[in-house]
């Protein structure tokens, strides 16, 4: 810009030339972004607005032409619908077991895989990841067999040490631990990302701690965990979002009935039923928006707490 003060006429042309280039570059760039922009508008933005609008109607698929605006009726109904509360409680009950377990187990496994005493780390990493590749429906069918009270191996193992095995899949209490255990077959991504995070922790930190006399447990909780807290945070966020979309395992295990006694009627399963069994699309849209608001609030709260416990080496 030093030239600008001396030769104002030149500046105009100089400025116009790059701006034309910049325009060209922006146009090319937008062209490349266009698949996503078009897709975002067609499959996300417009449907979101439409879904909000439909949540104020009694829209259904059989008689779309008879759709009427009914104001906030769907939302009032939602507050008085005992199944909404029940399915939310089911989801929360599951989340309270599955989310901590789904973080602690991959964290422990990553620490194990990161140990310099472990022989054949890559082999173990691959084999511990393996169940995460198993298609969810197949995995659910496998576990339905493993949890079987007569022929399943878990209860056979419990009986062989003299413990009475519970009726995992037909008990309103034991179904949640069972589902959480099934969920442990999907921790591969969390484990691999946590392991990668651990491998990035500078070894000087451990050397310094060792000089100060810290043991392995203290080093794990005072160095490893804080240093990989961004990865833990990322996985926590994803599992929180994922829990509210929990569907397939519950559906496959009980063929969508929500048995035993609505204990597997997860929020998303209830939404599915409202849509496809009761064909109440307007109400389903309202349920979906409630879900969105809940997930959004939880995410905001989570990001709010991040400042306290997530460590970022350099704020970008």
């Amino acid at each position, binding site marked *: 810009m030093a030239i600008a003060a001396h030769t104002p006429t030149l500046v105009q042309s100089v400025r116009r030339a790059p701006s034309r280039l*910049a325009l060209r570059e922006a146009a*090319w*760039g937008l062209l*490349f*972004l266009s*698949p*996503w922009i078009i*897709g*975002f508008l*067609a*499959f996300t933005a417009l449907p*979101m607005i*439409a*879904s909000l609008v*439909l949540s104020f109607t009694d*829209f259904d*698929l059989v008689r779309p032409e008879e759709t009427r605006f009914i104001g906030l009726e769907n939302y009032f109904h939602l507050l008085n619908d005992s199944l909404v509360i029940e399915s939310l409680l089911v989801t929360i009950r599951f989340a309270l077991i599955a989310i901590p377990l789904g973080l602690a187990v991959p964290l422990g*496994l990553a620490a*194990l895989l990161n*140990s310099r*005493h*472990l*022989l054949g780390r890559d082999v*173990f990493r691959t084999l*511990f990841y*393996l*169940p995460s*590749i198993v*298609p969810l*429906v*197949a*995995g659910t069918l*496998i576990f339905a*067999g493993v949890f079987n009270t*007569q*022929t399943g*191996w878990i209860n056979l193992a419990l009986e062989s040490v003299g413990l009475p095995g519970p009726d995992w899949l037909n008990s309103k209490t034991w179904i949640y631990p069972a589902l959480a255990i099934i969920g442990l*077959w999907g921790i*591969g*991504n969390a484990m*691999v990302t946590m392991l990668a995070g651990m491998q990035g922790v500078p070894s000087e930190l*451990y050397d310094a701690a*060792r000089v100060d006399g810290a*043991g*392995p447990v203290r080093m794990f909780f005072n160095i490893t965990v804080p240093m990989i807290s961004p990865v833990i945070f990322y*996985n926590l966020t994803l599992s929180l979002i994922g829990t*509210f*979309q929990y569907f*397939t395992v519950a*559906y496959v295990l009980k*063929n969508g009935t929500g048995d035993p006694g609505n204990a597997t009627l997860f929020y998303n399963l209830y*939404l*599915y039923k409202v849509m496809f069994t009761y064909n109440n699309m*307007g109400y*389903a*849209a309202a*349920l*979906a928006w409630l879900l*969105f608001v809940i*997930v959004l609030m939880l995410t905001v709260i989570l990001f709010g707490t991040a400042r306290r416990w997530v460590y970022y080496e350099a704020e970008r």
Partner: protein
Amino acid sequence: MTTTTNLLPFSASSKYAAQLRRLIATGTVTLLAIMLLSVYLMPMAYMVATSLKDKAQFTETSGPLWPAREATFTYQGREYPLYKVPTEDGVKEWALVEKGREQSSFIDPANPEAGLIEWQGRWRTLERAWVFSPRWENFSTAYRLLDFGRLLRNTLAIALTGTIGTVLSCTLVAYGFARFRIPGKNIIFLILLATIILPPQVTLVPTYAVFARIGWVGTWLPLIVPHFFANAYNVFLLRQYFLTLPRELDEAAMMDGASPFRVLISVILPQAIPALTAVSLFHFFWAWNDFFGPLIYLAAEPELQPISVGIQVFNFIYGREPHMIQATAIMALALPVVLFFLSQRVFMQGVVITGVEK
């Protein structure tokens, strides 16, 4: 997990002790890993064992965990059941020839010439002997009942076309984000990332209604077409990868008059094969796994359903036949598992890029 090494002056014995300690630590940690892995993969062993069992074995509670049938021995043209008989020389597997209340006659298959052996005791208290007997025909039966060939073709068609769409669109979009100055690009990128937390249900009702209106419900189109419009995860992965590639090469190509498309195809893509492979695998596995989409869009079209929905329906019908169910589970997971083993290095790198750098 880490042994503290004290800084003693070096001597032969302390060096020896340190080596021994390291050896013990290695043994303990590796053994722990093997034990945990066995527990973790136990359901797979259950699946394999169960899939090869005969249906009769499920009603026989004394049977072994592995696929087996009750053993018999043919003596003088007749078949006799084998039992585990406690004798003075330990438990023997003998064939029960003549049943008596308090004593029975057995024949020792290892030494039939010796003739009948009288055994004091109640034969009803004895356990049957089993021989290993895998029923491979369970797989052909399940294959036929499921019409697995059709399910496989459907799954491959949906997964592969979707993979092409994902790779194409995500490459273009990631290139746009990685290499071009666009006003408001950062905001657009943030919106892209924000779609990750958007529950898909929010857009489901109108999307389904529109697909129903234009006649796409009951076809593969809703499961394929949206993937031609890129998604946050894979765009993010490819963008991160493209950013690590040196700009000098594409700038040199630009100087030579290459269009941005040409640069993408001849400069960027050849360097990005690992990332493109990872994205292809991610989508392929995702599509193979997808249950909700096919469930709602293909509910009325069994002919078009993929494996995920097909085996769920099968499970509903054949729920009382564990060997059939486990055989279908194996068929459903075989291809992804083999692909994973073949590609696991590239695949894991992809997981790390999407998971750690965000």
